[in-house]
């Protein structure tokens, strides 16, 4: 997995310019998230993709040619912290199964953020691997709906991607 972090101008059309280039050059990304940063006027786009080094390098080089892309870098997973948030609604009408699910949530350090007679909605934060493992367990109980945010990441230590 490759993580690409881009700081871009916060103005209309920038996300389009980025995704248009990804499509046009035939790159395939797994996740993309956009949000604010510590600097006014700048947004952060975090993308993940699979592929060989040269593909990632080419994507980074092409994206850095967009005038709205202020800074772009690849974050090595071993030198970064990264998290994803998932919201998963699980079917849980049976009290015995419900308590099993609650146990798993505790083990995975998740939270229940909504409950009804027949279902639980769970918030799970962590690495994509952890979320995948949790979802695998939930499959047995019946996943009604799933929403994932895609990943955000920062370099470890005092290093900053925005410098």
């Amino acid at each position: 997995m490759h993580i690409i972090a881009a700081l871009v101008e916060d103005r209309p059309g920038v996300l389009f310019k980025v995704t248009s280039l990804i499509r046009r050059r035939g790159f395939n990304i797994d996740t993309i998230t956009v949000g604010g940063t510590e600097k006014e006027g700048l947004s952060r786009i975090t993308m993940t993709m699979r592929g060989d080094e040269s593909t990632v390098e080419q994507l980074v080089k092409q994206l850095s040619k967009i005038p709205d892309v202020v800074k772009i870098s690849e974050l090595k997973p071993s030198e970064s912290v990264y998290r994803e948030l998932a919201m998963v609604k699980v079917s849980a009408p049976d009290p015995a199964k419900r308590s099993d699910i609650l146990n798993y949530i505790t083990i995975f350090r998740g939270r229940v953020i909504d409950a009804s007679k027949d279902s639980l909605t769970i918030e799970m934060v962590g690495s994509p691997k952890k979320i995948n493992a949790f979802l695998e367990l939930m499959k047995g109980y019946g996943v009604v709906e799933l929403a994932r945010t895609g990943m955000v990441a920062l370099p470890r230590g005092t290093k900053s991607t925005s410098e």
Partner: protein
Amino acid sequence: MMKLSGAKAIVEALKKEKVEVIFGIPGGSTIPFYDAIYESDIRHILARHEQCAAHMADGYARVKGFPGVCTATSGPGATNLVTGIAVAYMDSSPIIAITGQVPRSMIGKDAFQEADIVGITTPITKYAFQVTSASQIPDAIRTAFLLASTNRKGPVLVDVPKDVQLEEVDPDYPERMNIKGYVVRSGDPHPYSVKKALGLIMSSERPIIIAGGGVIASNASEELTKLAELILAPVATTLMGKGAIPESHPLSLGMVGMHGRGEANKSVEEADLIIAVGMRFGDRTTGKLDEFARNSKIIHIDIDPAEIGKNIKVDVPIVADAKKALSVLYSKLVEVGSKRTESEWVKRVNSLKESFASNYSEKGDGLKPSKLMKILRDCIPSKSIVTTGVGQNQMWAALHFKVLEPRTFITSGGLGAMGFGLPAAIGAKVASPDRPVFNIDGDGSFLMTEQDLATAVSEGLPVISIILKNRALGMVRQWQCLFCNRRYSHTDLGNVPDFVKLAEAYGAEGVMIESYAAFESAVKRSLKAEMPVVMEVPISPDEKVLPMVPPGKGLKEVIWYG
């Protein structure tokens, strides 16, 4: 300071950029802009189709080395520019397209003549953006010129809603555009790369230079020729690189690639070092990549870091301006005294030239493109500008017309857009009125933009079109002959139209050419023409562009006349 309308502010900003001419067609959404043009001293060339306006700006830019400006109204006007913008993008030519847009309040409502031109052109421009208030205009135009004409050059589109053109602005207090993400490169080569390149050059026995359009864009012809002479490296060019070295130079090999000259392709294959300058290893240049230059080291000089390693792995990348990189390499090599005076390699290349010389003449009766190209070259001054259509006509010109000066061979290389020749010639003539401008074209290609003969006539621009009329979409027909068992599916155009009459209908001069002698005298006469000239030169539909490397094959698998 007096307040101006947004439209007037555009014109003022263009004047600040020293724009002398705009190519375009007015429409509903650019009426305010045109009203401001009306009272300005900027020349306006009224095209007859927006595609041509863009090609004219492009031809102008390539001859002048300065951005060309074109304009169109919203919706269909803007979408008609698209082909022209894409040509400029693929060939890294600096043009500025200014489009009208429906008023801000109507955007997104599918208003009459609304098209999302920023969205449409984003993949084919260096940058496309909409101006959302008149106060942005002065800085927006400055930004457009900066982006178009620095680093790797290319087209920029500025979309201006009609009500923004009417809004008042105080030009002394422009809103600053933020382009933090764009840095104008110094273009200086990194010393470490230079050192590594010098090592490869000094240890090479069979160096070859492949020069692309970047050499011409950075005005590096002199530096290129000096380096070639110093290390005795033969110079092949891409289609876009024609003119980077005078093709009469003893070290010149002509074009390399799918329709490259035999000696150029063979020399590239035999070289032990390729110095690739301002070229991007396009598929029409390399043939099958796995088989390209398998035995040689590669130094790749390009201003665009994204070109390094995009198509091919290289040994030494130099991200730099071609002119600066070549001149640094030259002076360092002179310092270490590695001037070469004799070279077995050059002898070998010369013997290749001789051995291929007899292969180029087409067989059979009728007028032959190669001979026509030679006659043309012999009859016109070296500074003359030649544009081309796309297809066989273009490849015959590339193979057989020797280009002697940079910026005198203007062709749609990357996009390969038929119809480019005539409007590009018009743009070239506007850029350089004192030089003869010839458009070498085919009948299929010419017909795609033929209506702009009206522009040439109205503006009194004596561009000369030489139409090699084979009554076919010749290049496709050639592929059908070679690869589809002569199943000529829909490539027969018939003997339509009569180009002599067509020219006359526009008020241009039409000439029918049926012999080499007639061609020669018509070309000589046309040098003094005061109106556009159209020569119809009938050739056989069976004429082929050879040699040819079949698509997907390596450069050595070449087809000759058999």
